[in-house]
């Protein structure tokens, strides 16, 4: 009986995912070795160094995998709320009993080993959401369901924010992908995305940039739904000519901020014209576009205003830090620059294993953790970094495919949760090393040095694989 069950699991386990996982973890280990390589301790198995420790974490992760696969799937469903509650309790405890590392109070220290409960809260939250949303009587768009869902997400997020670990807290925002799959309309996803882009632009770029982005997107959308495409085209042409002239004058004569206000006036005044031009059969929709655009413009202004007038200096610092606004030698801007030098110097083929000079010589402080991708870029070049990205992409697509073949809703929802978290981590982490996304201190899954993060991602993925191995049966 026991034996048959084990062989059943091994048979129905998705070995493609397992293979991708092992490949990524081993590559991660080699890169941690390269990142903190120290002539005095050259063995990769030396457990006094980070690479030796990472090996121990990997061995422990394999043990974890075996345990996870042996546990009956029903346990995950049945105990999901309990696990969630337990992790919340840990998050509360760490606020008082935790030790502070890098200004974040988010670690337990037991016998010299540091554990970060925030990493595990992702798994717990997804389990709880999967259980809650898989109830056939609930529809996501019912107010009560939606609110409960948001509360389930907000509690761990808030507690992690209190630990001063903004990066990990923001990861929870990614669950919007999961909610989108489970019934959230597409336009919310789009508006949410726009809100993030606009706030980041509003805080980091001159006022004119977020406005331009808003107007361009509004025009493209208007064009796509308009019957009179020529009118929209002409309007756009004229509109951008005027803006162009103003911006040109501003830069030529380096005039003051007043001009930005004039530009904004022009934009506000011309948006009704846009509506008028396109006001034919789908006038109502055009009106909506206009209203939304105006709200976004006001929103981008109010974010700036709110930031300037209501935030405490330390809150501003935190935001500045995340967005990399202020150049702080030990902070964001410096790291990104160093990281770009390291990656850029890799060229097409890279410098070769352990041959990176930047990673050896310089002070990217999070070289083996958050900035591990620059070691890949420097030593393995474009070929290596693209390979890593493609492997992650393969894993992400594979997770979507697996999620879609589930019979039980619980497993599918959980699968999309796994996708959301992994995708967010990969996109933000790699994005920040090449200077595209803000520097949010979150690890690259399976690569970054650290037990908590490796184990948390392992648990996250393998619970899903365990659920998948059981896909022919309803787990709930």
């Amino acid at each position, binding site marked *: 009986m026991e034996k048959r069950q084990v062989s059943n699991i091994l048979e129905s386990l998705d070995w493609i995912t397992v293979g991708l996982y092992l490949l990524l973890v081993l590559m991660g280990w080699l890169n941690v070795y390269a990142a903190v390589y120290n002539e005095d301790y050259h063995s990769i198995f030396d457990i006094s160094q980070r690479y030796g420790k990472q090996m121990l974490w990997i061995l422990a992760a394999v043990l974890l995998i075996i345990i996870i696969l042996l546990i009956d799937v029903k346990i995950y469903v049945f105990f999901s709320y309990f696990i969630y509650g337990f992790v919340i309790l840990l998050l509360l405890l760490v606020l008082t009993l935790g030790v502070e590392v890098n200004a974040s109070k988010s670690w337990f220290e037991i016998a010299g080993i540091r554990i970060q409960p925030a990493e595990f809260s992702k798994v717990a939250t997804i389990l709880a959401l999967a259980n809650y949303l898989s109830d056939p009587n609930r529809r996501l768009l019912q107010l009560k369901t939606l609110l409960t869902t948001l509360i389930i997400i907000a509690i761990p997020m808030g507690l992690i924010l209190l630990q001063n670990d903004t990066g990990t807290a923001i990861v929870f925002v990614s669950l919007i992908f999961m909610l989108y799959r489970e019934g959230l309309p597409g336009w919310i996803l789009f508006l949410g995305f726009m809100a993030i882009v606009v706030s980041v632009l509003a805080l980091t770029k001159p006022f004119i940039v977020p406005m331009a982005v808003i107007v361009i997107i509004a025009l493209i959308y208007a064009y796509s739904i308009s019957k009179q495409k020529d009118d929209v085209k002409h309007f756009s042409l004229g509109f951008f000519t005027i803006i162009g002239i103003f911006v040109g004058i501003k830069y030529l004569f380096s005039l003051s901020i007043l001009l930005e206000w004039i530009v904004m006036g022009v934009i506000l005044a011309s948006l009704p014209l846009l509506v008028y031009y396109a006001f034919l059969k789908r006038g109502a929709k055009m009106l909506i576009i206009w209203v939304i655009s105006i709200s976004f413009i006001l929103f981008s202004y109010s974010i700036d205003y709110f930031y300037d007038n209501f935030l405490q200096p330390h809150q501003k610092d935190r935001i500045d830090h995340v967005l990399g606004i202020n150049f702080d030698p030990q902070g964001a801007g410096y790291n990104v620059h160093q990281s770009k030098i390291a990656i850029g110097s890799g060229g097409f083929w890279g410098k070769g294993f352990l041959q990176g000079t930047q990673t050896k010589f310089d*002070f990217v402080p999070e070289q083996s953790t958050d900035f591990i991708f620059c070691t890949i870029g420097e030593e393995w070049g474009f070929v290596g970094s693209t390979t890593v990205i493609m492997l992650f992409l393969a894993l992400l697509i594979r997770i979507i495919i697996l999620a879609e073949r589930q019979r039980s809703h619980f497993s599918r929802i959980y699968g999309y949760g796994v996708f959301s978290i992994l995708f967010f981590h990969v996109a933000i982490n790699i994005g920040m090393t090449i200077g595209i996304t803000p520097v949010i201190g979150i690890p690259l899954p399976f690569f970054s040095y650290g037990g908590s993060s490796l184990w948390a991602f392992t648990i996250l993925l393998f619970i899903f694989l365990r659920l998948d191995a059981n896909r022919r049966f309803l787990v709930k």
Partner: protein
Amino acid sequence: MKDEYSNKPVIIGAIAVAVLFIYIVRLFILQMFETQYHESATSNVLRLMVQYPNRGLIYDRNNNLLVHNEAVYDVIVIPRQVKEFDTAEFCKILGIDKDYVQKQLIATRRYSRLKPSIFLKQISSYENALFVEKNYKFPGFYTQTRAIRKYPEHNSAHLLGYVGEVSDQIIKQDTSYKSGDYIGINGLERAYEHLLRGQKGVEIFLVDVHNRIKGRFKEGKYDKPAIPGLDIQISIDANLQNYGEQLMRNKLGAIIAVEPSSGEILCMVSAPSFDPNLLSGRERTSNYRMLELDSLKPLFNRALQAQYPPGSTFKLINALVGQQVNVLNPNTTYSCFGGYTVGRFHLGCHSHPSPLRLIESIAMSCNTYYCHVYRNILDHQGQINFRKNFMAWASMVKSFGLGDKLGLDFPFELPGFIPDTSFYDRRFGNKRWVSLNIISNSIGQGEILTTPLQMANMACAIANRGYYYIPHFIKKIENQDHIPEKYTTPIHTKIDPKYFPIVIEGMFQAVNGGAGSTARVARVDGLDICGKTGTAQNPHGKDHSIFIAFAPKDNPKIAVAVYVENAGFGATWSAPIASLIIERYLKGEISPSRKYLEDRILQANLIDGKASGI
């Protein structure tokens, strides 16, 4: 139902593909085309040079410079960049031995192989010039400018305080300090640390593998200039301060002078003193240890921290309280026959004419008179009201700023002591004490303790006829119009102003009166000095000599308190010193007829052969 969801997996997948595809394109551009990154990677390393701000300067009330900065250099090492080098030459340039090099290299490597740490502190600009010239031979090392404090007057150590490296404890509490930063540790340097310190900046240089600076990183785009600290002007008169330091040479004690009309402190001397430059620079730690071990305790700021009994100067307060509670008026007369006797109790007095009225009682400092006054204050409505009377007395005394910290802009002030009922209940048993038990308070010899600062402030309150300003040093802060309001708001005593003139007349007579007046030595023609002597009994040796005074009598410009330890009567040492201070401040010089007095003070050695360490 199914339709609505069918394209969602595709959209989600497409988003992932799109984002990661953009990344691949970006990587392609970054790694294949943006060649400037290849160059910066092969030939350059960034070096962050912290720019330490110049600490704010301190000027006296007449814009004389009291504290300025002098450049020194720290040798910095980045252990990972160190290659083999000629240790002998290295040691010769820096004046260190090989053991030190070994020890420091191990210590800094243990701290961090990548981060710069201080290898050797505060080398001179000459050593720095030699080192910079040969720097190419010592990869991994470079020097960085620091500034240390210089005190051109070589005195006023207690007043100015000193600066030193910030402690780990402070770094934990205030993250704006980093290891190796300087912080004001005592004196004005500590009190105005927040204004003086400024803000650190950073300059980023490109350095090649030979440790040579190739230029600024991105033309200095990411540099942050250091913002210098604010200069401050303090109320001290440097001439007066220097003069006070001279007068107190070879003596133990303190002088503190305050301008009554503003509360500005004009001079603060604590003796013995030392050269503040001893506590600035590389030798700070060993010098500090030496000063700490000195038996005369030169580090102890007597002006704010010594708590002595006020002695007879306290009779002034009792004279004022007595009038306020209506047990005393200018015509109240008591006889004195060599002391105050009740039953077997006897408190002695010196010989003087008798009987006395209020004015003469102050001028001649009669003990017996104040025993009567004090007992009347406490017992005037019968035994039943004794505790209430005592508390009323204590509260009026405290209204002169005694018994609590005054709250001036200076660290480590001590509160002195004014006893309360619970104190005596503990000493004598609950409610088992009467006025006679505490009669010593009448002449300032009981349990009362005051600091010289509090005595000077008390003199101000009397000089102002009933109010004072919290004594303070700050006069002007760079770029600011006002000093804190706390220092410009008068604080009123609980004594009606109308009771002051008679007491002041007593003080005037003490200095300017006829035979029997206690402080005639302090008389200066035309200055109308008002003063009161005091002698504080000292269980450890000879009495302490005390004098408080202010001048002129009308519109006083200066109030002063002088303590000289183990020097006997107030009139012998403290009164002349106080009068010299007043004369010097109001006239700018000492009149020829009083030169002999000045010489006597300057030459006096009251330390009894106890050698000072300095």
